[in-house]
């Protein structure tokens, strides 16, 4: 198992280096110069422009800037934001828990609903449940997040008044960040009602964020189940007179889970993309909104280091997914 983990880790090194190059080039390929954007409609004299570019190090050849970026990276320095002038790492750590909290709840919703729905649709293939749930999944998958989020806000917060409109917790609660996870911090704070408020603020954004992964997971579970249920060993199990619940729960589901776990792992990337829009609509102070703001201001250090951190995270999750295969299917880890 250790060799298996090590071999997987080894793959990460070139991938990571590749990502540094992509992250570095991505913001620079976009047209637009951060110094000009800072000056806005007023304009900036060529001398002042040169002075500022030099101060920020943008006057150096690109490859020098890239190796400088890499060099600092190995010393754990991700640079400072051009806009706030604060260290990128500090900003990331402040905002990251909010995104994780939202993402975890979303993936939890997507999995807890998606897998059973997929299994049920597969068992009752062709039934009204199958048709309705798979059509709903298709609709969910095609849902424009921005519109969907606004719709939910208008209906549940505006018309029904059941949920708060946006934010992470009601403004009447004020306590210091301990973990950065609002659900935990609100409990630690001991303030009455804080946890309930934090929970109610999580409902709409996590439902919105869960929508696309939920649809994908449900469809993937259904097709994986259908495939497995056609296998010889399932037929054999049935023929032996094994109770259907055991056939489905043990023989079929366990094997169908491999592609499903892959799908769930891949959804982490999808979640990050969804977080960008979801966080903007729900004024959720996470890294998705942070990236969008930084891209529009061409805040090079934040975009390149932020992308790197996010990509690193997705890689880590995929590694965990790979390791989980090993747990579920011993053949994979012995290959």
């Amino acid at each position, binding site marked *: 198992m250790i060799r298996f983990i090590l071999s997987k880790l080894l793959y990460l090194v070139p991938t990571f280096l590749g990502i540094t190059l992509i992250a570095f080039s991505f913001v620079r390929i976009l047209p637009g110069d951060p110094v000009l954007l800072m000056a*806005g409609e007023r304009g900036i004299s060529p001398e002042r422009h040169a002075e500022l570019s030099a101060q920020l190090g943008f006057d150096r050849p690109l490859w020098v800037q890239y190796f400088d970026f890499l060099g600092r990276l190995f010393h754990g320095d991700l640079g400072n934001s051009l806009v706030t002038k604060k260290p990128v790492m500090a900003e990331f750590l402040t905002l990251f828990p909010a995104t994780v909290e939202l993402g975890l709840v979303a993936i939890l919703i997507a999995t807890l609903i998606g897998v059973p729905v997929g299994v049920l649709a597969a068992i009752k293939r062709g039934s009204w449940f199958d048709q309705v749930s798979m059509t709903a999944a298709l609709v969910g998958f095609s849902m424009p997040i921005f519109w969907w989020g606004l719709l939910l806000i208008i209906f549940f917060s505006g018309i029904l008044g059941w949920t708060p409109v946006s934010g992470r917790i009601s403004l009447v609660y004020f306590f210091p960040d301990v973990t950065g996870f609002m659900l935990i911090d609100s409990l630690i704070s001991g303030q009455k009602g804080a946890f309930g408020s934090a929970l109610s603020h999580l409902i709409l954004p996590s439902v919105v964020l869960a929508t696309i992964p939920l649809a994908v997971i449900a469809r993937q579970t259904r097709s994986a189940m259908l495939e497995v249920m056609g296998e010889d060993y399932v037929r054999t199990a049935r023929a032996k007179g094994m109770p259907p619940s055991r056939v489905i729960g043990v023989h079929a589901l366990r094997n169908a889970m491999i592609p499903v776990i892959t799908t769930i792992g891949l959804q982490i990337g999808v979640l990050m993309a969804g977080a960008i829009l979801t966080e903007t609509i729900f004024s959720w102070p996470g890294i998705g909104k942070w990236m969008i703001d930084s891209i529009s201001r061409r805040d090079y250090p934040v975009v390149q280091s932020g992308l790197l951190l996010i990509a690193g995270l997705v890689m880590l999750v995929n590694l965990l997914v790979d390791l989980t295969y090993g747990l579920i299917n011993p053949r994979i880890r012995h290959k």
Partner: protein
Amino acid sequence: MKMLSRILIAASALAMTTAMPALAKTFVYCSEASPEGFDPAPYTAGGTFDASAHPIYNRLVEFKKGTTEVEPALAESWEVSPDGLEYTFKLRQGVKFHSNEKFTPSRDFNADDVIFSYQRQASADHPWNQYIAGITYEYYNSMEMPSLIKDIVKVDDYTVKFVLTRPEAPFLANIAMPFASIVSAEYADMLDKAGTKEDLNNAPIGTGPFKFVAYQKDAVIRYAKNADYWGPAPKIDDLVFAITPDAAVRLQKLKAGECQLMPYPAPADIAAIKEDPNLKMDEQAGLNVGYLAYNTTQAPFDNPKVRKALNMALNKQAIIDAVFQGAGQVAKNPIPPTMWSYNDAIADDVYDPVAAKAALEAEGVKDLSMKIWAMPVQRPYMPNAKRAAELMQEDFAKVGVKVEIVSYEWGEYLDKSMEPGRDGAVILGWTGDNGDPDNFMGVLLSCASAQPGGANRAFWCNQEFSDILSKAKQTSDVAERTKLYEQAQVIFKDQAPWATLDHSTQYVPMAKNVTGFVMSPLGDFTFDTVDVTE
């Protein structure tokens, strides 16, 4: 679904019944953008100033609420030498700086704070100039302070003298701007000793009506009333900014009572807000102008008669109706009508396609095709440049001018539109910084601003016009300046380097029970006079 709705109800009921502990009077503002930081000097965004300069700090002089008139603030009075080169400020005594967990001021505000606040921006050698690596002072620079201020002299603890290199009438208005906020020199000393200089930006100490309490990045800023404020005490105890970037969500929050006031409603929502019985809305003409700048260095646009003819072909009212949905007015001058020296005697070009076509033909212009540049972003002076460009395209087609609409990414747009060989006319605009006419005409239309790095996108250099501006800038007599600027506007209209398009209307929706909010012509949001009634 039943299960889901049960969870929803349970969670929200839990939140509602247990929330709302006894509270001091709190006012929540659904702000639009996160502040870049809390030291106003290095930043340029209006949202940053609303969160820093206005609640936390004061300046020597400030804009009187709801106007662009300069009034005494931390300076009680001032004298200008006859040659206009020396400004001597008498400072207000007994003004207390805020305190926080780590800092309690041992002395009142005095001349040292003034000198510290300016010198750190003025001199690259100042120990606080680079207190955060890579920091720059763009407003200080762009208002030409480095070349204008020769020296700042401490006459005594409560008297400061600014020595200028040239007479500059807008000087007082310039130093009423946020970048000139006064920070505490004593606090800076303490931070220096503690090795936490960056706290000048993170844990700000000022003299303003509200004390900074806490900032949760991209989410919430909290302030508390400054009980020792030298001016009229704020009526609310706690001020909270709930950062909400999306206009539709801001409106939902306002309707749900999660905040009491919001900036920048979407134009499409204006009508609905007006009808909402729980809301009210202030409105005011914005201190801005939207324009179409011709490249006056290229034929046939170097001919004022051609430019005037094109201006006559534009149906500007149709643009106001379509793009602003009525929330704006047609512009005839380069400065907005709320600004002093606005020349209302000037008549706008009358929309007349037939006459326009004839005028173009008289100038020998036939089969003209041109480009119109449409900005990719929304601005208060131009919420939808693409739509405006399409309307102009139709108008110009009626007089036989073919238009191709082009656009670029915003940074590139700003850059390329200043290239002297630019092909086409550019849609752009301006929002005033300080209410001085020179901040419009000087910045956008003078010969100096037609140089690289300027903002004169018509590349229009009319010596007579520029001379009048220079003269007006050196006189502090407002009546005389008014006359000069009125004259300048006549030349502008006659020469038509731009098609002046619009001045937009600014709206501020708020809850019915909000009182005392005063809209600022400069677009600032200040809450020291705001109150909420039950």
